């Protein structure tokens, strides 16, 4: 159960290998690792993206993400989870976020990983501003993200 907010990039292969091999010798044996990486699109809403800048609310961010991880851990039988979210100014194809979840069997890790992303998208205090060929603009929140979150509210888990 780790949360990291950072300006610098992360090494995806290293992070996933560390998750996968953690817990060696422990009672619960890792059989599944599900991960999500979000990256800056080269095009968004039809315009070329020059940069994407992420602002956040530092005192609140880690608390919000930890609460989401705790909720996932309560709902599913997972072994560990990791959230890394970058802030600052990024370029197209840069990694923005990694969510990784390990479990004994795959169904738990798939559910928990998607749950964490859906809640992160709607509850964690990050805001994106794009610099495009058409100028700067704040990214609008999507109704689809609210709908994705609401799916989990009618699930028992």
């Amino acid at each position: 159960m780790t949360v990291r907010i950072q300006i610098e990039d992360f090494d995806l292969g290293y992070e996933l290998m560390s998750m996968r091999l953690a817990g060696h010798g422990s009672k619960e044996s890792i059989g599944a690792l599900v991960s999500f990486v979000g990256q800056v699109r080269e095009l968004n809403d039809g315009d070329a993206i020059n940069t994407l800048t992420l602002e956040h609310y530092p005192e609140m961010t880690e608390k919000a993400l930890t609460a989401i991880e705790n909720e996932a851990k309560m709902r599913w039988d997972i072994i560990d989870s990791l959230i890394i979210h970058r802030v600052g100014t990024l370029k197209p194809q840069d990694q923005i976020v990694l969510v990784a979840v390990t479990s004994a069997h795959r169904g738990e890790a798939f559910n928990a990983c998607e749950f964490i992303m859906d809640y992160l998208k709607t509850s964690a205090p990050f805001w994106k501003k794009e610099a495009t060929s058409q100028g700067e603009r704040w990214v609008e929140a999507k109704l689809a993200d609210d709908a994705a979150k609401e799916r989990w509210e009618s699930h028992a888990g």
Partner: protein
Amino acid sequence: MNIKILYFARIKEAVNYSTEELDLPSDISTVTALKHHLSQRGANWANLFNGKQVIRAAINHTLVDDLAKIQAGDEVAFFPPVTGG
């Protein structure tokens, strides 16, 4: 009572600062009342806080709805719907 207010993203840009300390009149005790209070500051503030834009609030780093109570010493944050991930 004294509170601290933080603004983020497009709201920060619109009000043109990110934080303020405020001595709140004693009859203002909810997020709704605070939004209304801020909307009295002029056209710019009225546009933001008249209820036509979705503005989320957090009190002491926890998301709250507009009925949430504000207490002395609270850190209240206003921001647009989040767009991380």
